[in-house]
């Protein structure tokens, strides 16, 4: 065993505050309910059309919540699908099952589909915003991100700053126990098994951007962390993975090299 899942996180709306989950279904396209909403902006590049906390830091202070949370953690027929001899997919429920409300920094709560929600962001954006929903996670590059507590600790030591682990917005925070920071880098190109069923292929190191400079509880930024990661770690921190075998994972699950 290499380590275990210290915590599991999904982010219902891209760039907004995430939620910790005890158990979640991991599909080929990412964690169920992860980044299923995103804000797109008319002034963003077409290749990356998202309005994110890079352009509006306090988005990380907005808390998005699924209105029917229980139904967004695992597909209803997961067991039957996994037991099927042809290894069929477990279908997701329709979009209405993923309805989300958002609590803003001032405590106001609005349905994400309420026009008043976007109207409240108008002054904070340079372009016109719209809300996109998709069952598929709107990740930047790959379906799953993995980051170790040891890497957080190493960066804290190297920079002498109080870094919050959620600055890295990973899905899986991992405790490698006796291994050092950035151990996850050594897994690039390898298959790992998480819990009883999920298999990941660790594809590449995660190239970092300004987002990691934003503190998740204050939305204050410290550009020095990104400069440090760029200079000392070639701009990478954490790893991206693809999902080879779907299934549920739980916080505390073991992580081991797959056969």
């Amino acid at each position, binding site marked *: 065993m290499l380590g275990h899942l210290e915590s599991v996180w999904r982010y219902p709306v891209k760039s907004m505050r995430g939620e910790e989950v005890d158990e979640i279904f991991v599909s080929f396209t990412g964690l169920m309910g992860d980044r299923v909403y995103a804000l797109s902006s008319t002034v*963003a590049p*077409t290749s990356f*059309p998202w309005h994110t906390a890079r352009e*509006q830091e306090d988005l990380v202070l907005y808390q998005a919540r699924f209105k029917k949370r229980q139904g967004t953690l695992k597909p209803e027929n997961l067991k039957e699908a996994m037991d099927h001899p042809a290894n069929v997919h477990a279908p997701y429920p329709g979009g209405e099952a993923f309805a989300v409300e958002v609590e803003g920094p001032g405590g106001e709560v609005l349905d994400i589909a309420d026009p008043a929600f976007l109207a409240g962001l108008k002054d904070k954006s340079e372009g016109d915003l719209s809300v996109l929903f998709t069952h598929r996670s709107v990740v930047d590059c790959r379906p799953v991100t993995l980051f170790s507590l040891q890497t957080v600790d190493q960066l804290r030591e190297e920079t002498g700053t109080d870094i919050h682990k959620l600055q890295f917005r990973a899905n899986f925070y991992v405790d490698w126990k006796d291994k050092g920071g950035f151990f996850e880098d050594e897994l690039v190109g390898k298959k790992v098994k998480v819990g009883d069923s999920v298999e990941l292929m660790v594809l590449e190191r995660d*190239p970092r*951007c300004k987002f990691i400079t934003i503190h998740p509880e204050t939305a204050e*930024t410290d550009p020095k962390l*990104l400069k440090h990661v760029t*200079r000392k770690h070639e*701009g990478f921190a954490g790893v991206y993975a693809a999902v080879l075998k779907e299934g549920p994972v739980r916080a505390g699950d073991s992580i081991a090299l797959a056969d």
Partner: protein
Amino acid sequence: MNFYPLTVSQVVDETPLARSFELRPADEHVDLFAYKPGQFLTFRIPWQGAHMERCYSLCTAPCSDRALKVTVKRVEGGKGSNWFNDTLRPGDVLDVAPPSGRFVMRNRDRPLVLFAGGSGITPVISIIKQALYETDLSARLLYANANRDQIIFRQELERLCADFPGRLQCRHHLDAEKGLVTSDVISDFVGDRLDSDFFICGPAPFMDLAENVLGARGVEDRRIFIERFTSPDDPSNADAPVSMPEADCKVLAFRATLDDEEHKVPYQAGQTLLDCMLNQGLDPVHSCKDAHCGSCMVIKKSGEVIMRKSTVLSKRDKAKGYILLCQAIPQSDDVWVDCDA
């Protein structure tokens, strides 16, 4: 950069490839669109569900024209120029940022010699009108085009020559008849008028040639004003197709604080601050060079820059003075950036 709605009030065919677009701001925005002859407007153009930005110089002058007008010549494969010519009709509304640019008359005590190529005539004719209407200065224009059909503003130039006899001389150079403009053509046109102010706008090789000839003739850099419009590095990249003018003033260097040391960094036209620092062996933190990662965010302590793209910067970053080294083009000779901030 803030954008405001401008209504297209008239569209005029200037040549088979170029159209002029008269624009009117809303009454409450008229003051925002006051301008100096030679300046440009930045347009936000709808493109594939998003927007791209393009800059086009005003061909009008406040002293002689009531409306704002830009003239856009089709460029093969050019997204912005073809969109203007194919799409815009009277009554359409465009998002436009107020005028800016430093390709303007600086002195009122020296005659003007102007070189224009193709659609480079747009800011040049604006400056000519200012010189004629607002001063007693004389102006000489060398205007190069592929052939006679491509001459933009031919009648307007003839009328200006007639209205201001002896003060405006206009020499047309047609490639179809005489071949491309050569250094001899430029040098001959300058003659002994080396104490003039020189304005240049047109295709890059044309501008480079004119600048080199003037330099070789001993014209001081500070007497040469150039308007360069560049497209993104990859013209097929629809993500950030921002055209923008490079520094028309002669920025020779900028100041950079890096690792607690002060550096005077030579500036080369068309390059970003980051390029120039790397050329000097300096290594400020940077990564993507595409305004995406934000690792080259630095504080601008003084001076003016324009950024080709600034997508990763928030309003808050901009208010704090952050710029991106990989996108910044200096617009004044007092630029100072702090890379340690």
